[in-house]
């Protein structure tokens, strides 16, 4: 470790690739990249395998995964038999199948249906009845098991050996490992490369892979990307070595227990989803109650274990995503992320590492990684996601959204995070008078703006005599039309009674009711249809920007109407668009 430190002090170059995280994903990626000749550095805050990977249950299974992940898992399973030779360590890989035991009648039917789903994807998995299961695994308590799904090509391996195996092989191939080095933030330098600020000084790289497991969410947030990753805690217990009981990997339909017997003879078991963890400390405290439950559970299934001594327990954190599959995608030009393995990333870690290496080498995203794109959560807003199945959305700043009528939020108006890339200031930060800016591509034609306008001005809901009106030109083109408070205002020129005046910081043209004789000259003069006659008032009505906080913009959920200042440069583009829009509307309204 000390040698390592000295080396860091001497280090001042730029790596091709820096990997954050020395888990299975990071180490595999380091190995495959180094093997391709890349100049790779791996930064790990603890030691290699000190995250989920070293604490893992070791199951190598394709079955019981979300459909989109099964092809990748199959690819990984094909890789496993070759790894011991390739890495030069015995990874204790055993391919004797995975059994997912059904312990309650309520689970029989769903399990059979789930088997069908997996079969439809080409996976070799089948239903075994009670007799068949107990024949295959005589040590199982017959009364406790009603049946199981069985996937013969699944198995298990020693996760620590595989993770450190990849690390050693990567080192041999030339990769640099810096352990005890915590990355605090990643940013882009003017030169275009990424700068990593760490507990051991700055590092630079052309490409960064965030394979930081439970630390990934925080790191990505430091770059302005809020990924829906929620850290989940899983428990592990291990017995002393006992005589051989079974060779398969086991899970249960309720997904709260896994177990396998290691080569050494100890039985490693643990609870699945026990609790969500707020903290991402590397050594989470064990939850005694859950350990007790897991122990009782396994003894119900394998009574012989009732007399075995437990030698150790530990817990580990692995982030989950809302849809049960990881995010493996590019965040920007420099940064790739691979996290959110939802408690079963050990099995696919090797192939994810290999595909990441391939991606960086070829510059093209491998096809098998396609389902894991980040954009599938684009519309999730700032979502504090709780893996209990209930969603709790949290507004970044409760007030920005509506009260502030969009000023300050970026992109889509209501979405705060999807595109919250702090490096690119949006044109909306321009200062000066604000206007209503309409983006027809976002308008869905719901006419909420009309209702907002009507209620604001008349305190009743109506669709006529409103100051903003949605025009429909075709089945895919519609937009609201309101007075745009022209600089050169024909309406004001037309009015001979001084009933139209311009005032306020936003240079609003508004009607002075007392002066209006309803002569309609302004209505005729306006080329946009921005002024209407109101029978009730016997005067004309038009947009007055609601005194500086237009209701239409505040209530426009899709973000088609925004009230904001416009920079000089944007004006030209907007004028061109406006002509285009008028053309489309004209065509449609004919």
């Amino acid at each position, binding site marked *: 470790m000390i040698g390592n430190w000295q080396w860091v002090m001497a280090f001042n170059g730029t790596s091709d690739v820096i990997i954050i995280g020395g888990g299975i994903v990071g180490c595999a990626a380091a190995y495959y990249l180094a093997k391709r000749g890349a100049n790779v550095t791996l930064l790990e805050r603890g030691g290699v395998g000190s995250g989920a990977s070293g604490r893992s249950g070791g199951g190598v299974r394709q079955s019981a995964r979300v*459909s989109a992940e099964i092809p990748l898992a199959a690819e990984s399973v094909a890789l496993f038999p070759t790894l011991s030779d390739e890495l030069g360590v015995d990874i204790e890989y055993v391919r004797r199948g995975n059994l997912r035991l059904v312990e309650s009648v309520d689970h029989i039917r769903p399990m059979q249906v789930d088997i069908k789903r997996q079969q439809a994807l080409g996976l070799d998995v089948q239903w075994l009845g009670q007799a068949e299961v107990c024949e295959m695994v005589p040590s199982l308590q017959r009364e406790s098991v009603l049946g199981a799904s069985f996937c013969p090509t699944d198995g298990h391996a020693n996760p620590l050996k595989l993770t450190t195996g990849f690390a050693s092989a990567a080192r041999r191939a030339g990769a640099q490992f810096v352990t005890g080095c915590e990355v605090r933030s990643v940013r882009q330098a003017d030169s275009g490369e990424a700068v990593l600020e760490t507990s051991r000084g700055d590092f630079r790289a052309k490409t960064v892979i965030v394979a930081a497991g439970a630390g990934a969410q925080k790191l990505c947030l430091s770059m302005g990307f809020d990924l829906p990753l929620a850290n989940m805690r899983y428990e592990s217990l291990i017995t002393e070595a006992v005589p051989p009981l079974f060779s398969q990997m086991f899970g249960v339909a309720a997904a709260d227990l896994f177990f396998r017997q290691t080569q050494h003879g100890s039985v490693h078991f643990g609870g699945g989803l026990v609790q969500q963890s707020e903290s991402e400390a590397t050594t989470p405290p064990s939850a005694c109650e859950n350990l007790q439950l897991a122990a009782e559970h396994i003894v119900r299934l394998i009574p012989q274990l009732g007399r075995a001594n437990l030698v150790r327990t530990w817990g580990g954190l692995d982030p989950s995503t809302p849809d049960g599959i990881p995010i493996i995608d590019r965040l920007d030009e420099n940064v790739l992320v691979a996290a959110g393995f939802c408690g079963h990333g050990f099995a696919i870690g090797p192939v994810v590492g290999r595909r990441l290496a391939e991606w960086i080498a070829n510059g093209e995203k491998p096809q098998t990684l396609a389902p894991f794109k980040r954009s599938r959560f684009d519309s999730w807003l700032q979502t504090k996601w709780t893996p209990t199945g209930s969603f709790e959305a949290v507004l970044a700043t409760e007030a920005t959204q509506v009260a502030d009528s969009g000023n300050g939020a970026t992109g889509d108006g209501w979405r705060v995070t999807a595109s919250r890339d702090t490096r690119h200031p949006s044109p909306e930060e321009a200062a000066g008078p604000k206007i209503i800016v309409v983006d027809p591509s976002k308008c*869905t034609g*719901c*006419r909420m703006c009309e209702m907002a306008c009507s*209620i*604001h001005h008349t305190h009743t809901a109506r669709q006529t005599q409103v100051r903003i009106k949605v025009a429909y030109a075709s*089945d*895919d083109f519609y937009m609201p039309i309101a007075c745009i408070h022209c600089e050169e205002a024909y309406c004001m020129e037309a009015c001979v009674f001084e009933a139209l005046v311009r005032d306020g910081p936003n240079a609003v043209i508004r009607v002075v009711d007392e002066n209006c004789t309803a002569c309609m000259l302004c209505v005729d003069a306006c080329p946009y249809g921005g002024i209407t006659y109101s029978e009730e008032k016997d005067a004309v009505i038009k947009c007055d920007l609601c005194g500086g906080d237009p209701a239409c913009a505040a209530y426009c959920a899709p973000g088609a109407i925004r009230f904001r200042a416009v920079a000089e440069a944007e004006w030209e583009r907007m004028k061109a668009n406006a002509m285009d829009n008028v053309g489309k509307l004209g065509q449609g309204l004919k």
Partner: protein
Amino acid sequence: MYHGYTGTILRINLTDRRVSKEPLDLSLAEKFVGGRGLTSYLLYREMDPAVDALSPENKLMFGTGPLTATGAVAASRYVVVCKAPLTGTIACSNSGGFFGPEMKFAGYDVIIFEGKADKPVYIWIEDDKVEIRSAEKLMGLTPEETEDAVRAATSQLAKVACIGPAGEKLSLLAGVVNDRQRLAARSGVGAVMGSKNLKAVAVLGTGSICLADPEGFWLAALDVLKKIVNDPVSFGSFRAYGTANLVNLINEMGAYPTRNFLEEVFEGAPATSGEAIAERILLKNRACFACPIACTRVSEVKDGPYSGRGEGPEYETTWSFGAMCGVSNLDAVAKANFLCRDYGIDSMSAGATVACAMELYEKGYVPQSDIGFPLRFGDADAMIRAGRALRPPRMFHGREET
């Protein structure tokens, strides 16, 4: 003083062409909330349940609720209530779009159609003014053509609810179509409208709806709006993938009715899912009145044998013509949806009917000689052919269908 409600029921007797307006009994409205509650009660009170659903004695009611057209978020729907010819019991089909709000802006909570016109008619309602006009020239037109023709004869701003050719022919699959492409689809309500010789209802409203506490109401609406746009399901997946966002979800749960309910997992689900629609044929999202979600798909199949353009397909259609028929060709499913729209029939019942025919054929209960072609699960062409067989006779004035 009515708040939320307009306070008026419009009654149109088609037999003797009498139009009357009745005040809404507020205590009743409080007991039976909303369009469905109110119209169900009115039907119960006014009509003998034993009447033949397709006889003049049946009553057809369009109902709206106290929130409709007030700017309350997503309050856009209206219900069509009558005795259902398909099920023999009370029907309550509903539909979004803009027709319901327009009814209220015109001043009506409920419109009741009674009796039967001696000749095909349509009704033109402009606020207080109600006219019964001849619809002879509209017969045989698709809902879209009908709406265009009616608007040309009334006002371009009018909102129209009508029946397609299937409703005219009293098909039990017929729905009432509003805003060109949306159906109050279920239970055969379109046949009841057809049985009254009522082809279309056009409405234009300029009135306003009073709110007891406009400011409080509007703040509450804002609250709901915020909740919706911060909900990852409504504002996330419904916006991104439409109602068909459910396809993959339900399929993964193992609850996706497949091949006429013989199976529950459909291998073609991903290819016909909301995700696939968004990727392949979606042009734009479209909203119903005052709804921030805008789940409606405007989609287009550009070329090939299944080309077409319009709204949908919704979850139910991808289910009925997709999984139920075992068809994983999205273009074909979209085409089936467009055909149903043109006939004015319920795409759920239509798809399920084709799927049932497929099972009967595969099991040998219906010989090929009865159908005229092999009708196997999964055969997209056969599905479309069978779908076309649901076309009402003499549709399109004998014109060849495109």
